[in-house]
């Protein structure tokens, strides 16, 4: 542990990437980027959406081959032709988007290709589950290793990804936004594990858009902008302000710009909503001009409530009214017609049609408005897509490019654009800023605040507690499928929310705050 102290001379990099460049057709994703990871250190890689972070990760993982540049591990030059080779060289990766096998068990997902086997080569299922149970316990989550991955929430999937990387016991651990979907609880546990890995001498690369995590957990930073290296150094030489300035190239406005307004009449009224096994007797209202936060632990059922309100999931009891119109269950189209919108939590599965262009995605919810009679009006399609994507400062080559070519954060902006284009009266946003960089996050917040000021009712589900606290006029808290409390802006604090969400006092929380 002594040789692992940052900045000391004895320290040699475990992994060195120098002069890496990568091009995707017309897009130069990386240009001459370098990176050094030291044993026993957590290294933060920072940059705006689309800066090239994930591309860099995928080069280290052997998923992409760099057009130029050299990679060394332990001083030896290496070339990875595939993910298998990177893993064999002791590099473990947690990718930005969970990539799991939905039809296999949690245990098999974690140990795929490395399942413990008997002498005859037969897989020893019992040992396999025991091993994985051990890792999950270390992470402090109650996931059954024998259950299938299908149906796990994004957060639980992220946990499985983490378990997978940890099970490798690798010398280099690369984590691309592992905490984006996690709440404080899991995040804290993850960091605890990371610290113990560091103590064992592992080198860690950590990507996040939550700056507080960087300053709490990392020893070094590298900052990128537009695919280029901007600066690198020990964390002590940086402040949040300087980091943001180097990332964005300018000073940021206020992150949580929402000023409390006088709420208008009730826009969304949910009463007695129940679905056995999912949620029970959920009632609340959201008024015009109001931003209401919906907080809770992962798996508390917030997304389920949102989906049931919008009509994607069934609901057995209860009613939903938008501006006085009752909305029947399982009719998203009628809900939309009444002025309801839902920005779903899983942008890849639920939010976007990856193969289609940015424009087609952005217009998908308002096709009926873009026609002349029966036929589509191409000019109107262009105009409409242009309007919202530029307002959200989408970084894209052309609007006719497939949305899959965008970086994660920019994809999220397309989902937002799609719903803002509908001009909703009530907008439910589920993890609206997951994976979005600070600049864009401020932008999303500004847009939401402006729209609220203009009379939009917003229900905001977010696992990013500071975001909820900063933006919401009122906070509803869910626990195990029930609404357990409501806090006004004045009453709300991280502690108060956690107390409601867990049903326990803060000292039991293991120092999460």
């Amino acid at each position, binding site marked *: 542990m002594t040789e692992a102290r940052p900045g000391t001379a004895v320290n040699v990099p475990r992994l060195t990437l120098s002069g890496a460049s990568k091009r995707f057709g017309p897009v130069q994703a990386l240009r001459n980027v370098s990176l050094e990871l030291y044993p026993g250190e957590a290294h933060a890689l920072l940059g705006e959406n689309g800066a090239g972070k994930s591309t860099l990760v995928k080069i280290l993982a052997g998923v992409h081959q760099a057009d130029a540049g050299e990679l060394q591990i332990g001083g030896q030059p290496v070339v990875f032709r595939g993910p298998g080779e990177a893993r064999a060289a002791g590099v473990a990766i947690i990718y930005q988007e969970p990539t799991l096998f939905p039809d296999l068990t949690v245990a098999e997902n974690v140990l795929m290709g490395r399942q413990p086997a008997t002498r005859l080569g037969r897989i020893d299922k019992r040992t396999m589950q025991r091993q994985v149970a051990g890792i999950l316990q270390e992470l402090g989550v109650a996931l059954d290793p024998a259950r299938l991955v299908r149906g796990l929430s994004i957060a639980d999937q992220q946990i499985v990804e983490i378990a997978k990387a940890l099970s490798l016991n690798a010398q280099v651990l690369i984590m691309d936004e592992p905490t984006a979907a996690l709440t404080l609880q899991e995040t804290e546990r993850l960091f605890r594990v990371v610290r113990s890995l560091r103590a064992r001498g592992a080198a860690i690369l950590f990507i996040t858009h939550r700056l507080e995590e960087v300053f709490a957990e990392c020893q070094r930073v590298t900052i990128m902008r537009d695919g280029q290296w901007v600066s690198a150094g020990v964390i002590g030489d940086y402040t949040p302000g300087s980091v943001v300035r180097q990332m964005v190239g300018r000073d940021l406005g206020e992150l949580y710009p929402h000023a409390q307004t006088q709420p208008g009449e009730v826009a969304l009224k949910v009463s007695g909503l129940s679905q056995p096994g999912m949620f029970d007797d959920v009632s609340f209202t959201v008024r015009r001009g109001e931003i209401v936060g919906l907080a809770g632990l992962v798996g508390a059922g917030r997304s389920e409530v949102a989906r049931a309100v919008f009509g994607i999931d069934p609901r057995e009891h209860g009613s939903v009214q938008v501006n006085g119109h009752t909305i029947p269950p399982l009719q*998203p189209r009628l809900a939309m017609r009444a002025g309801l919108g839902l920005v779903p939590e899983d942008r890849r599965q639920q939010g976007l049609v990856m193969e289609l262009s940015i424009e087609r995605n952005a217009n998908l919810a308002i096709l009926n408005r873009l026609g002349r009679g029966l036929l589509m009006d191409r000019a109107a399609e262009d105009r409409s897509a242009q309007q919202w994507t530029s307002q959200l400062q989408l970084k894209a080559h052309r609007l006719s490019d497939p949305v899959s070519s965008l970086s994660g954060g920019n994809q999220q902006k397309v989902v937002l654009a799609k719903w803002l284009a509908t001009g909703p009266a009530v907008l439910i946003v589920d993890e609206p800023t997951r994976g979005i960089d600070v600049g864009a996050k401020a932008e999303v917040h500004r847009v939401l605040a402006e729209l609220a000021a203009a009379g939009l009712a917003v229900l905001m589900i977010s696992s990013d507690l500071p975001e909820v606290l900063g933006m919401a006029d009122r906070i509803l808290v869910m626990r195990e499928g029930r609404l357990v409390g409501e806090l006004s802006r004045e009453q709300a604090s991280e502690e108060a929310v956690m107390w409601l969400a867990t049903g326990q006092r803060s000292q039991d929380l293991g120092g999460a705050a």
Partner: protein
Amino acid sequence: MKSVRGLLGWEATILALVVLALLGGALLSPDFLTASNLSFLTANFSEIALMALTMTLIIIVAEIDLSVASILGLASALLGTLWAAHVPMPLAILLTFLAGGLAGLLNGLLVTRLGLPSLAVTIGTLALYRGLAYALLGDRAIADFPPFYTNLGFGTVPGTAIPIPMALFAVLAVLTAVLLHATAFGRRLYAIGANSMAARFAGVQVERIKLLLFVMSGLMAALAGIVYTFRFSSARGDNGTGLELGVIAAVLLGGVSIFGGRGSVVGAVAAVFLIGIINGALTIVDVSNEILTIVTGLLLIGSVLVPNLLARLRAARERRAVRPVGDAVS
């Protein structure tokens, strides 16, 4: 955009191949490029062409309908039975359409209500509808259709060599192309095919649209059955057996992705003509059916393989072009 451009390229390629096939046929045999031969030749694939239109829509939403040829047979058998029972022809035609629509509705309901995979459902209804056709007609064949109607199937548009079924097809092809490429409905089909969950989250009524498409497919197959019956002046239980694979082969050759979300009417139509013309050209110079079967298979494989290989070649060349610059930097 890359994929979009690639697709347009593919359609242009298919159209170019159609022209090449015509020229090749003319070179091979002086009897090929005559109005009457082309007229026979196109009339020959009218049913496949008709069914390819709705099949294109269905495959674009990532479903499949293997039962079309059986619905064709059922429609033919029903039309014959009704006619033999002295039902007036217009009413018989109406009832045949109704039956086709119902057959499509059953497919659609099983797929959308029960959530069964369409491949499995339509393998089942492939047997069911063909069986019903046999049950209706048994070993009978109805042949004495009124000349007015058989002339519609058999004749050409007055003053031209264009077969009447092909003229009908042309009209329907234009309508389908407009529906798919220029309406909100068409836009939704692509979204459903590429990611039905995301489409549902955007308020697209995925189930209802799929149901509608299966009904359309049933109606179109019934139309093909009516055309078939009049064209051959013969209603039999086994009419059109096995045509489904030809329809699907044509649609896929036309660049419609079997995984949904990609393809165009122009491509599918051009592919129907390409297969038909190549077959016609090779038959006229007495190339055996065995070789024709092989050529069809190779065309189908080549239609995807060749663009894939070209794309990879291009990518490799680009990478080679990039490398020296990169090396200079490092």
